[in-house]
């Protein structure tokens, strides 16, 4: 509706200045027989109509404010403090472009620098970039980075890495002659078990990818894996799909990761049916020049005032073209801003609380469900805020039944792990109430017939 502000009079003046008679004359380079085709696109709607249309579509979804949400699996229903949306909603942030002109973009640049700092500290890694598309893309870029750094051609992935992350790595590596080895996950009497990934590492291995907490919620001692990586000269690539866990858990840096990646969604980004979110990426100092994505550095102007600029651009496509570390251009700056606001609002105490409460509620949920006849918790050791449950029947069926009670009952493992058709990964966050956990348990109990 009415977005083109030129009035008819103005158009005439402009056409005269250009020296053509009509607007159509500006399109003569288009082959005539395909010029100005019919478009089967409905006529314009007014704003009233478009709001009505879109609200009706939205109303055909049940959103998580209306449901008790017990699904995580790489997408977490943490509380987003109000202030996050208000700051992201400043039009100076969301209607600006990539900060190519630093004097006109210090707001974005400083917030990117702060984001890098926060992520580096959260991960306890030397340096972080200022985001890539999402967690899976961050992992794919990390693997490419490891291949460039080591000049090797084999990649080892833990089978307990999020299936979508593994799928994206596999697409990114397509046709590049890289061997991909994945450790197997099996259901045993004692619970879920993953074959030792260390056995897959050899001197052709560019990197070993592990996720912590893993896709089933487990937290493990990664010391032996890190040790073995060092021995064979492979890089340890560490995935954090649930970034809130870093409020509590030993960090990628502390475990000895060479490259750490993660999904920032947990840290103040709306679920939004899967995106846009924000990929986190950090590494050891020595690998800095292989890190893809935008990087902001501090510097000064002629009056010695501190300012920030995009830096190390010689890594990037617009300078290095086919020799760039990645093709990434538009990234996720606005979401990185959200993460920055989120982390600065929570601070250490808030983040610790979010992590501790998420864990506490998950533990309460797991304990409650473990007592239900027919259900079994498959985690054999400690878990963070997710745990895997074996149901008496098909996981997808259980989900459908619980949706009728207004509950999203976890992620069904059947598609990704054929042996785990009956298993669900359940998740809690600080938002889940004791009453909701009780509803979940009752709903699950009702599925036993």
């Amino acid at each position, binding site marked *: 509706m009415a977005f083109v502000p030129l009035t008819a009079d103005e158009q005439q003046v402009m056409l005269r200045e250009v020296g053509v008679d009509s607007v159509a004359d500006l399109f003569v380079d288009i082959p005539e027989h395909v010029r100005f085709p019919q478009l089967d696109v409905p006529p314009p709607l007014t704003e009233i109509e478009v709001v009505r249309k879109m609200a009706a579509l939205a109303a055909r979804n049940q959103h998580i404010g209306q449901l008790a949400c017990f699904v995580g699996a790489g997408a977490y229903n943490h509380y987003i403090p109000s202030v996050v949306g208000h700051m992201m909603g400043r039009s100076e942030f969301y209607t600006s472009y990539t900060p190519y002109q630093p004097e006109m973009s210090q707001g974005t640049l400083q917030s990117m620098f702060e984001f890098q700092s926060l992520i580096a500290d959260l991960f306890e890694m030397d340096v972080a970039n200022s985001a890539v*598309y999402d967690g899976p893309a961050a992992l794919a870029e990390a693997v490419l980075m490891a291949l460039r750094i080591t000049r090797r051609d084999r990649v080892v992935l833990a089978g307990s890495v999020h299936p979508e992350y593994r799928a994206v790595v596999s697409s990114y590596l397509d046709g590049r002659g890289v061997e991909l080895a994945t450790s197997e996950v099996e259901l045993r009497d004692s619970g879920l078990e993953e074959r030792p990934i260390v056995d897959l590492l050899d001197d052709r291995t560019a990197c070993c990818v592990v996720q912590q907490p893993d896709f089933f919620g487990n937290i493990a001692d990664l010391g032996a894996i890190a040790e073995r990586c060092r021995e064979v000269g492979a890089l340890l690539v560490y995935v954090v799909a649930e970034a809130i866990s870093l409020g509590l858990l030993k960090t990628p840096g502390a475990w000895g990761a060479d490259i750490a990646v993660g999904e920032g969604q947990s840290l103040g980004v709306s679920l939004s049916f899967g995106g846009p979110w924000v990929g986190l990426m950090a590494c050891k100092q020595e690998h800095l020049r292989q890190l893809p994505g935008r990087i902001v550095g501090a510097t000064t102007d002629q009056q010695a005032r501190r300012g920030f600029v995009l830096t190390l651009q010689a890594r990037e496509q617009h300078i290095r073209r086919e020799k760039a570390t990645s093709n990434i251009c538009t990234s*996720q700056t606005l979401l990185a801003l959200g993460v920055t606001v989120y982390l600065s609002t929570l601070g250490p105490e808030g983040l610790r609380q979010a992590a501790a409460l998420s864990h506490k509620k998950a533990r309460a949920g797991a304990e409650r469900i473990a007592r239900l006849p027919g259900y079994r918790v498959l985690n054999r050791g400690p878990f963070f805020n997710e745990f895997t449950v074996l149901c008496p029947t098909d996981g997808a069926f259980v989900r459908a039944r619980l949706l009728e009670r207004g509950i999203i009952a976890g992620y069904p493992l059947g598609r990704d792990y054929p042996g785990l058709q009956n298993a669900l990964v359940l998740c809690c966050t600080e938002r889940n109430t004791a009453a909701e956990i009780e509803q979940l348990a009752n709903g699950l109990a009702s599925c036993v017939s």
Partner: protein
Amino acid sequence: MTEPLLSELSRPGRVGQRFASPEQCRGAVDDLPPELLRGELPLPELGELDVVRHFTHLSTMNHSIDAGFYPLGSCTMKYNPKVDEDVARLPGFAQLHPYQPEESVQGALEVMLELQRLLAEITGFAAVTLQPAAGAQAELCGMLLIRAYHRERGDLKRSKVLIPDSAHGTNPATAAMCGYSTISIPTDSHGNVDLGRLKEIADQETVGLMLTNPNTLGLFEQEILEVTETVHRAGGLVYGDGANLNAILGAVKPADLGFDVLHINTHKTFSTPHGGGGPGCGPVAVRDVLEPYLPKPVVARRPSGELYLDWNRPRSIGKLKGFWGHFGMMVRALTYISLQGGSGLREISEAAVLNANYLRARLSGVYDVPYDRICMHEFVASGRSQRQYGVRTLDIAKRLIDFEIHPPTVYFPLIVEEAIMVEPTEAENKDTLDRFADVMLQIAREAEENPEIIHQAPHNRVVGRLDETTAARRPVLRWARVPAQAASAPAY
């Protein structure tokens, strides 16, 4: 005034948000082995007001579309109707978990399906995936589709991607990410792909051609049908970089020009805000032969009418990113297209093209315009004749900042010396265009009469020109660690 860093504002003991009283958290993690827990958590400690003031201050240091003109060539910095934002924030869209059961997200799947259909119609293609995160990932997606196509036909020796020398950096970078080598095709004197060279080069090793049309000079390829035909004859496919689609909505469907794949930057053409450098959204449209390879899952409709995500796509290239793509951007794009309607889309391109030509007409003569013919939605001028006064394109750019105008894209495309790439977009009115032209002409005069003022620009921003060389030589990429006092030991 510059703004302190969050770390500098931090004071031990300040809290912006709690989720419970400390007592309620006590014991919460007693069951976890201490060796799995972290030590320090050196985050800054701030109150909510500290946070609000900090980011409010930072915001005021930015230029933005809502504050002023932003004629960044190749970026399509147009105004985004505010209603897009409202719609995207509806809880029924913003608060959906990607793994909700499909029966609970039928409206969301409908949004995706409808947007796919509209984009296919606008571009003339058979099918669309919405999964890629932005243009560059869309290019990767498109090239993987092309690889899959050649591979399935057993055509395994193709390894060279042809790319015009005017192309955007993502094109060669993408080809390289796929493990292909690249061959650069020169631009002829009219600003078109050099068709003669293309014919010589295209052969049985050609994977395809990556072509932007209108190209990055803002010019429509005058022999586009022969260009695409040439590549097809060599057995290659033509990848369309659709970054410049804003010029040709309703004017031509790229599929009708011989493209086989086309990416769309919704954050350019379909008005999802640019966010200071993202998020984007990079749908890819393809001819029917490429449809089977699209990333999974694909939104599909059951005979019952119910929508679902179809994962059963054995020939698919797999997944490009997590989940289904940038859904929040899809909602905005559908809202925008619905507002415009078919007629509005054509009006957009007409006005975008008229605006660019108007500015070209007003500036040419004073600034060099190397390929001075009717342009599409943007044109590339050059600051080379200002060089005689010691003024470079970079200086002109910085001087514009003094007038609260964001500089055009500069030094791109690489084939134009001292390039100044101007894209006004359809969203700007004539007053804004005239003011920009007046200021540019004034700067040209200043270059002759008072170059000092240009060299010292910008004058009124929070910082002056920054030392980028030192920034790259001795990179400072993070703050000094926050003193982690209160934060030192886990409290529970």
